[in-house]
C-alpha cells in the first residue's frame, strides 16, 4: 500500500482546481470594497497614539516582576546574605550558575554563619531567566532586578562574577570582610534582627 504520508504529486492541487474551473481569488467589483475595508484599519491607526519606544534613547520601566539580571543581596550592615550553598546552581535548569563555597573565619568574615560563597558566577548566555534559582535560595540572597541590558560583544563579558552581581553598598553598610554585629549570631541575621548599619 502507498504510504499515506507521501504526496501523490507535487502540484499542491492546483491542477485539480483549474479543472474544476473555480476562480482563484475574488476578482469581481464586490471584492474591491472588501479590500478598502481592510485599509480602514491602517487609516484609523494613523490617528492613534504611537506605541513605538525610542529605545535606547528612551527606556521605559519594565513590569514590576520582570525577570532581569540577578542581584546578590546584603544584610543591613553590609555582610553578604549568600552562604555558598549552591542550591541555586542545583535548581538551575540551564546550568548557568557556578558557586564555590568557603569557610568564614573570625578574621575574614563575608557572611554570618560558617560558610560564604567565594566564587559566584552567572553565565547570561545560558540563563533563561526562569527564576528557579530565586525560589531555591534559602536566605533570599539571590533576587532578580529589572535590568535587562545584558548583551555584550564577548562571551567572557556576559559571565557575571560575584562583584558584578553583589548589591551596591548603601549608606551604613560596610564592605565585608568584617565581623558580625557585637552580640548577634547568624540566627539574628537570618531572623532580621539586625537594624541599621554596623553597630548602629
Amino acid at each position, binding site marked *: 500500500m502507498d504510504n499515506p504520508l507521501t504526496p501523490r504529486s507535487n502540484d499542491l492541487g492546483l491542477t485539480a482546481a483549474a479543472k474544476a474551473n473555480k476562480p482563484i481569488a475574488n476578482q469581481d467589483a464586490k471584492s474591491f470594497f472588501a479590500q478598502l475595508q481592510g485599509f480602514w484599519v491602517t487609516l484609523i491607526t494613523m490617528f492613534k497614539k504611537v506605541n513605538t519606544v525610542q529605545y535606547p534613547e528612551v527606556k521605559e520601566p519594565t513590569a514590576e516582576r520582570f525577570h532581569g539580571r540577578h542581584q546578590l543581596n546584603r544584610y543591613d550592615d553590609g555582610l553578604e546574605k549568600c552562604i555558598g*550553598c*549552591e542550591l541555586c*546552581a*542545583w535548581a538551575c535548569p540551564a546550568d548557568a550558575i557556578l558557586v*564555590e*563555597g568557603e569557610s568564614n573565619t573570625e578574621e575574614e568574615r563575608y557572611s554570618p*554563619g*560558617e560558610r560564604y560563597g567565594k566564587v559566584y558566577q552567572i553565565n547570561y548566555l545560558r540563563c533563561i531567566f526562569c527564576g528557579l534559582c530565586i525560589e531555591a535560595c*534559602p*536566605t533570599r540572597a539571590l533576587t532578580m532586578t529589572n535590568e535587562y541590558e545584558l548583551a555584550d560583544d564577548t562571551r567572557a563579558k556576559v559571565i557575571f562574577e560575584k562583584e558584578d552581581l553583589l548589591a551596591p553598598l548603601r549608606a551604613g553598610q560596610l564592605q565585608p570582610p568584617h565581623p558580625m554585629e557585637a552580640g548577634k549570631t547568624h540566627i539574628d541575621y537570618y531572623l532580621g534582627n539586625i537594624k541599621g548599619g554596623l553597630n548602629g
Partner: protein
Amino acid sequence: MTPEQALLETEAPVEMITVVIDGFEVTVPKGTLVIRAAEKLGIQIPRFCDHPLLEPVGACRQCLVDIEINGRAFPKPQASCTIPVENNMIVKTQLTSPVAEKAQAGIMEFLLINHPLDCPVCDKGGECPLQNQAMSTGRPESRYEGVKRTFEKPIAISSQVLLDRERCVLCARCTRFSEQIAGDPFITLNDRGALQQVGIYENDPFESYYSGNTVQICPVGALTGTSYRFRARPFDLVSIDSACEHCASGCAMRTDIRRGKTLRRLAGDDSSVNEEWNCDKGRWAFKYLTSRERVTTPMIRGADGELHEASWPEAIAFAAVGLKGKRAGVLVGGRATVEDAYGYSKFARVALGTNDIDFRARPHSDEETSFLSGIALGLTTSYKDIDKADQVVLLGFEPEEESPIVFLRIYKQVRKRALAVLSDAPFASRGSVKLSAKLVTEISEISGLTSKSVILVGERLSEKTGALSSAVALAEKSGAKLAWIPRRAGERGAIASGAISTLLPGGRPVSDASARVDVAAAWSVDSLPSNPGRTTSEILLALSVKNLDAVVIGGVDPLDISNSALSQLLNSFVLSLEITHSAITAVADVVLPVAAVVEKSGSFQDWQGSSRVFEKAIADSLSRSDVRILSMLADEMGTPINLPTVAATAREISALGKWDGSAVKFESARSVKDLATGDKLNLTSWRLLLDLGTLQDGEANLAGTARTASAHISNSRAEKLGVKAGELISISTDFGSLELPVEISEMSDNEIWVPRNSIGSQVIAHLGFVSGQVSVAKA
C-alpha cells in the same frame, strides 16, 4: 561479616531459613538479620545505625517493622536490624503495615526534633541518608514548635575531622567503627538523654589512622572532613572508581573530581580487599599534585646551568642524544604503575641495551634481589588466608604503619577469635598492642606454625642480613603461607614487569637463555642483554665512578635510598620523568613532565599479586603516562619499543603472559649477629603511616594527626642515661646526629627505635643509615 559472606568463606553447609516479608518468601542463611533479608527482596527499610560490617546495635530505631512468629505477633514494632530471621516468621514493613509506617514516621519526627535545618551549609546535603529518608518515610510537617537543642559547632575532634553535635542522630556508627574495626576507641558517646553526644577523651586526641571512615559512614553531616568542608555539592562532582597509589594494600577507591581537581577520595567497596574501609593517607593525601610546583613543560638544562622550557621534540631529541650509545641505567621508583614499569623495563632492555634497572628506591640487599626474583612472584597468599589463619607472623613488617588495610584484616580476626600474632619488632608498637602481638627477638625462636599459618614479610626484613632466608626456611619447614608486603603500591607490579635487573617481564629470568629468546621474539628484537644488571645502589655507585654515563629516573626521592644518592648523580647525564619539581629535577639535564595517577589510566598490583586497575579520573588532562614518553624517546633513538598507549601496553603484557619455566633459585644468606657493644645501641626504624613522605605534601590537616616522633628505649637504659620520659636524648653516628624526646617501652636494653622519616627524625638524612649501631646520650 555478614552471614552471606560467612557462607562463601566457610563453604560449609549452613542452615537456610525461609521467611515471608511483605508477602514474598525469601530463603536466607540462619543468622541473617531481617533488614538484610528484606534487602535481598529489594525491600528497603529505612535505617541509620545499621551497617553490614558493624555489629548490630539498634540505636536509631528507624527500621521498625511488624513481626509475627508462628502466628504470634510482637506487641510492638521491632527493630529489623537487630532481629535474626526465624522459621515461620512473617515480617510486614512500612510497605504493607500501617503500624510500621506510622512507627517509622514517628521515629523520624523524633530524630528531626533536634536536628538543625542547616542543610544548605551542610556538606552532607544532597547525599544525606537523613534527608533522603525524611523525604521517603518522614511526616511532611513537624508538630514540634519548641526551641531546638543547640551545641557549639563545629568542634574539631582532630585536625581532619569536624563534629557538629547538633546534627548527630546518635546512631553510634562512628564509635562502633572505631572500636570494632579500627581498634581505636578514641571517640565515644557521652552524657545521657537529650544531651547525649559524641565526644572524644580529654587526654587522647582522635589520632586514628582510620578516622576518615567515620566521616564516610556518618549517616548525617555530624562528622565532616576538614579538607572537604564547603568544597562542593554531590552534583558538582564526577566520580571515578580508582585504585589507591599510596601502599600495596590495594584499596578500591572513589575519586571525586570537580573542574579538573581532586576534591575528595572515598573508600571503594571491595569485599575481598578493603571491604568498605581505607586509611586516612589514602583518603586525604592527594594534594601532593597541587601543592608543589608542577613540571608543566619539558625542560632542558642549558649552558648556564639552569633549566629552560623546551618543546617536546626538542627535549626528546636532546634526551635521545644524551642516552643513545651511552652506558645508562634506569631507576624506576616504587610508585610506577604496572604499565609504566613495563615501559621502563622494555626501554632499558631494547633502547639502552642493559639490565641495569631497579625499582627499589630504598635500602636493599643482594639477598632481597634473589628473594624478589626467585620467590616473590610465586607467592599467592591473600587476604583470605589471613581470615583463615591460625597464627600470623609479622617479620620486618608493622601492618598499621606500612599496610593499614592488612592491619584491619588481622585485627578483625584478633577481635573475633583471638588470632595469635607474633612480631619481630623491637618493642610493642601501638599496632602490636592492638593485635596483642607476642614479640620475638629471633626468627629461629618461632615454632608451632602450621600450614594454616601466615608469615607476612615486610620490605624492611631485607635490612637484616639473613633474615629473609630465615623467613623462607621457616615457611618451608612449617608449610606456612608466606607473603611479601612492600610499602609502595608499584613494587610488586614492578617485579612482574621486569623492572629489576634479574627479571624480564612475566617473571622470566634474565639468566635463562630461552626466556630471553621468548621475550626478544615478542618484542621483535634480535637479542636481549644477558649480562647481569646492577641494583639501585650499584647503579648509583657506577654513575659516581663513571662506569655508567647516564641514568633515566622515574619518581624517586634520593633520600629514600641513601644520603649520598643525589651527589652520586652529579657527574652523569640525568633524564628525569617527574610530576613535580624535586631534588632529582634540580640536578637533571632533561626533565619530562608525566601524568600523575589521577591523570592516567593503568594498574597496580597489590601485595597479593592481584591487579588493581584504575581509569583516568581527570578526563581532559593532557599529561602523558611515563610509558608513552619512553616510547617517543625510544623512537627518536631509533630503537622503538612500540608502546604508544597504556592500553596497548596492557595488551602486550597480557599477550606476553607469565613465565612457566623454572624460577631463579633463591640463594639464602647466613644471618649475621649484629650485637651492640659497649655504649652503642642497635637502632631500628620504620616509617610511620603519616610522616614526611612526598605523597603527603600539602595536606596540613592530615599531618596534624601524625604521631609525634620519639625515641623508644628501655626503662633501665633510660635510667642509665639519666633521662625521663619526654626528655631529649641525642642519637649520633659518625655521619651526624638527631635529638628526640624519649618514650620508655618494654624492650631490650641494647635496642633503640626511632621513626624513619618523621618531623625531627629523618634517619637517612641525619644518621646516614636506617639500622645499625648508634651512640646515645642525654641531650
